């Protein structure tokens, strides 16, 4: 964030990802750019379907292909471009330098192998450990993510664990090779509320302990507020606002961000009060309007908004970038 001289760990530039569908070409990610510095957490927020997961998958070269493909853009990890890298090169990075944890803990692990077996596999491949070394390393990291009796649990099959435990196993697996970057795609969305808080806290604690950078994908601004110092807001495949957390909550510049913030339930509000929702519907990615994708739902939209897409520009005398012709003051 601070525009220091040190280079970012990850630098995504003008990323465009498209899917070939029966109804035509769908642009899921459209010109996305952001930086993540070593050891920092960047929040990536937005409504369902706005392209958060696809952005995360792109970093590891995991966009399902066919039908998807990275059309253009660069994904620079410590200077080397992951977007242009071949499978063999990517395989060396996946799980070692960059790890990803997924939205669905119930189905993310291979059901027919013991979790110890799956964890050993990663450690042996990337760290060159022997089976025995990998086994004790797996137990050690399971203990770190808060799994009770790790030496016993390591012999369990995924179906023998609860959702929260499975997500912890995923986290353990993701951290096992000491990655520099963790892509966490809604790591707590599928869990129940109490587990959510525990798992999130665990992730943040381990992130600091390991000193890794994190891209935290979520649609929950509350989570962002607790964990990140900087966040980008996505809408229909584009970044509409990029800002520090303090700024984002105090002075949301994009009308969409304002709407998102207004729809967070607050403890102080009277129960029974209806939360304001953003009027209208998210447009279909196959039939995006010519101008700003948010124009039809925006209270401030005018002719220009419907004619051309606003660029993501730095607001004068701030560190906030916003893609809007009429940003809030």
């Amino acid at each position, binding site marked *: 964030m601070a525009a220091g001289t040190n280079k970012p760990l990850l630098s995504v530039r003008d990323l465009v990802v498209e899917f070939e569908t029966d109804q035509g070409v769908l642009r899921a990610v459209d010109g996305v750019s952001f930086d993540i510095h070593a050891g920092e957490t960047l929040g990536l927020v937005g409504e369902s379907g706005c392209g958060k997961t696809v952005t995360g998958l792109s970093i*590891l070269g*995991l966009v*399902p292909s*066919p039908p998807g493909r990275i059309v253009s853009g660069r994904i620079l990890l410590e200077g080397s471009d992951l977007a242009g890298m071949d499978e063999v090169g*990517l*395989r*060396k*990075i*996946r*799980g*070692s330098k960059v*790890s*990803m944890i*997924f939205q*669905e803990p119930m*189905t*993310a*692990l*291979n*059901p*027919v*192998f013991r979790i110890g077996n799956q964890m050993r*596999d*990663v450690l042996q*491949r*990337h760290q060159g450990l022997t089976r025995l070394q990998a086994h004790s390393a797996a137990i050690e990291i399971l203990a770190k993510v808060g799994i009770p009796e790790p030496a016993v649990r390591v012999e369990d*099959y995924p*179906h023998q664990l609860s959702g929260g435990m499975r997500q912890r196993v*995923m986290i353990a*697996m993701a951290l096992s090779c000491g990655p520099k970057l963790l892509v966490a795609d809604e790591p707590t969305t599928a869990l129940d509320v109490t587990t959510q808080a525990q798992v999130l806290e665990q992730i943040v604690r381990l992130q600091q302990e390991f000193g890794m950078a994190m891209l935290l994908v979520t649609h929950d601004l509350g989570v962002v507020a607790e964990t990140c110092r900087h966040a980008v807001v996505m809408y229909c495949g584009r970044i509409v606002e990029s800002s520090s957390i303090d700024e984002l909550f105090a002075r949301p510049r994009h009308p969409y961000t304002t709407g998102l913030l207004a729809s967070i339930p607050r403890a102080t509000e009277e129960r029974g009060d209806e939360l304001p929702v953003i009027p209208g519907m998210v447009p279909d990615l196959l039939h995006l309007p010519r101008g700003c994708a948010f124009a039809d739902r925006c209270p401030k939209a005018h002719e220009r908004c419907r004619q051309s897409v606003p660029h993501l520009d730095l607001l004068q005398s701030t560190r906030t970038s916003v893609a809007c012709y009429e940003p809030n003051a």
Partner: protein
Amino acid sequence: MEVLQYIVRKLIAGIPLVLGVTLISFVLIVYFGPDKTYELLGKNPTAEEIAEIRSQLGYDQPFTTRYLDYLREVIRLEFGNSESTDEKVSSILARTIPTSLALAIPGFILGNLLGVMLALVAAYFRGYWIDKFIMGFAAVGMSISFLIAIIGFQILLSSSDGLDLLPVRGWDTSTPLQYIRYVTVPTLATVFVALGYNTRFYRAVIVEEMTRDHVRTARAFGVPPAQLFYRNILKNSMIPIVTRIMFSIPVIVISGSLLLESYFGIPGVGKVTYDAIVTGDQPILKAVVVLTAVLFVVAQLLADICYRIVDPRVSLK
């Protein structure tokens, strides 16, 4: 111990199926099948002669008595003697079943093994020409009738118009080489047709498994393709694959060997059954019907045990 208990429980549960099949087939064979009375009588028989023959054949007994007699035979696995050759049915079966197995097993194994392998290749290269080529080949296998496939391979390998390498028909297992010479054409025809259906089915199963979350996870941890296919995709596709294999056993044994053996003149159960149908040889038909029902029960049992082996989530309860 758990497995043993399970097997016993399953076999007991299979009894109603066997009973049902025996009852239906008994009615069909005995009441709608050929009536032997007039074959055994001379011209213009008297009413007494007819009655005497019918009582010799047991036709005059009430239904329940006849059915219970049959069940008694089933339990003792002793079906009397063939009506056409007078050989004991049990010794006929003991002689012919190994022949049928020797004929069916190579085609069965190859058809499934190659099916899975081609399906893996097609699924891995899905959308590319190699996928289209394999699936086109499968479509040909599916649309060509079994008999045409047999005749095609005969012309190709056994006739003077083709390579003229192998015998046209018959059976000889005196030496391994002779066995291979005789088993090749029926096996090729079986594999060609089975491969069509198998490849298509297995490809669909594998492609579906390829889209699962755990496959994505494995890729996100740098698992190389060969390992991905084995540990994530194949291992998790085993339940539908096992199901198909196990339930194709009875079908292959019955319909496959019936046609192949009578066409090639191979002395297996299929040929014996075919002859028994033609001549109305009831003891043999009754025995074959029971064996088939038992085969179904056993195949299902084997399938369940295999599920337990391939998938830790399955428990034998």
